[in-house]
């Protein structure tokens, strides 16, 4: 008896869900889309390629790591609806892709609100820490690492590379910009007019030229910050995010 009931229930569920799926599939072309997110790093108006030598602020530089965290993401659509992805963290990096779990109506997005960093509770490592998160979690352990082992919390943003300092045009002096700590969390709000009906892949773009605006890489004090040891530089770079970040 019960077995039969279960079987019937199962059939009903399957039938219903396939109906639902069908409806959705039908819908997507016209009314709703699944958003994807990609992360572009731009230097001298080109796509950043790791290991390639660039002229930047009158120095020869190359890069090998570029990552940052996007949290608290909320996107406002033209009708005032808010797409809320604030429960997720997006680890921005070349080639990384983040896909939203649910479809959204394909109305234009007029505003992106988010922060660069990690919220205070997750950053404290007192309860859940990076070792207790699965490797698939953006806040889990990564290589190159985004967790700070010597300080509780995460590098909110990390750019590593090399600069030429001896004039042979070969960048071989390490440069490293590791920025984190609660007070340096950066709120960003970007107005836009993004049509998502044709192209539902949103690109977060970090312009390396803007990020390093005015930074003379020949000056030793400008060659690295781990935040606390060179707070002034860390703060300056964070302030550049307003102009360095855009959404396409």
């Amino acid at each position: 008896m019960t077995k039969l009931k279960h079987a019937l229930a199962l059939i009903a569920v399957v039938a219903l869900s396939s109906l639902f799926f069908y409806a959705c599939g039908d819908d997507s072309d016209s009314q709703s889309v699944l958003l994807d997110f990609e992360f572009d790093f731009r230097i001298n108006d080109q796509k950043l390629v790791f290991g390639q030598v660039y002229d930047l602020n009158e120095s020869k530089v190359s890069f090998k790591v570029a990552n940052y965290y996007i949290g608290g993401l909320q996107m406002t659509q033209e009708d005032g609806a808010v797409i809320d992805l604030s429960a997720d963290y997006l680890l921005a990096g070349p080639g990384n892709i983040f896909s939203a779990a649910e479809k959204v109506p394909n109305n234009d997005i007029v505003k992106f609100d988010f922060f660069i960093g990690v919220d205070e509770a997750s950053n404290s490592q007192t309860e859940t820490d990076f070792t207790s998160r699965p490797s698939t979690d953006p806040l889990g352990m990564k290589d190159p690492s985004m967790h700070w082992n010597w300080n509780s919390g995460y590098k909110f943003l990390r750019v590593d590379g090399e600069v030429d300092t001896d004039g042979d045009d070969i960048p071989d002096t390490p440069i490293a910009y590791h920025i984190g700590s609660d007070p340096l969390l950066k709120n960003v709000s970007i107005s836009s007019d993004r049509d998502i009906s044709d192209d539902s892949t949103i690109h977060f773009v970090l312009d390396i030229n803007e990020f390093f605006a005015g930074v003379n890489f020949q000056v030793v004090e400008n060659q690295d910050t781990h935040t606390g040891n060179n707070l002034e530089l860390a703060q300056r770079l964070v302030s550049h995010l307003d102009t360095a970040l855009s959404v396409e």
Partner: protein
Amino acid sequence: MLGSNACYEGTTQAEMIFPYSLVPEDITPFEVPADNPLTLAKVDLGRRLFNEPSISLDSTISCASCHKKDLAFADTLSITPGIHGLTGDRNPPSLLNAAYLQSINKDGGVAKLDIQALVPIEDENEMGISIVKLIDRLQADPDYSRQFTAAYGTDVNGYNIPRALASYVRTLISFDSPYDAYTNGDISALSQSAIKGKALFFSDRLNCASCHSGNLLTNQSFQNNGLYNNYSDLGRALITLDSADVGKFRVPSLRNVALTAPYMHDGSLNSLQEVLDHYQHNLSGHTNQSPQLRSFELDDDEVQDMMAFLESLTGSQAKRGLNQ
């Protein structure tokens, strides 16, 4: 499956006695995080990892390279090199009684002992290997894989590597010094000179115990003890980003201090004699220097008495390199 689990539970119970058995009755037992209760299996695994050079990038450096058993788990070098002879900025501290630390490292940057091991493992000047790579390396070793599974019920992962190491470190307990014996009523345990030194240490005139207080001879606060005018290592300010914390370091425990020269965060003072000279004559007057520091002058006898007292803080096991 169930059977082995029950057996595991049973062993845990029996093991609860250890290493608490090393903590004398008059001393509050240390706390262990609920998600990482101590078991002998974890401690054995942690001990093995602690002495394992293969947990460094080029398999040359183990935890024991810098934390030496016969030196109270510290080292005689100011800065002990890691892989490729690279050096960091700080002197390896003793690990004895690290189970009691409220925050980890001299600047308190690490929130808990259970994740501390990631610092040396990943620091490019120490062991220089990404935890992600180390997990793969240890998983590929059937013997470690088996031992991790026995201790934690799961294969090697980033959660249990630092926790196994922390479990071992928690067993490094030292409360068996002549000073302890004296405090517990054995008045013959200290020489007359050490007894005078103890009185000086706890006196208002020297005021050492305003920072070096309690069972561990530290109140675990962060203080600037006037070492420099210009700190190349900013200490606590690296974590708090507050300039009022420049040059502040956690007040170190003075237990086994006679075994752990050189001294201070960077190992810049070579002997206890130099430390006493520092407190008497060389305070820098840095803006953040603690007002608890007194200006005082010791005569030769008093210096001897202070030395005798500081030496009486050496545990008898530590002295013989027996903690393990």
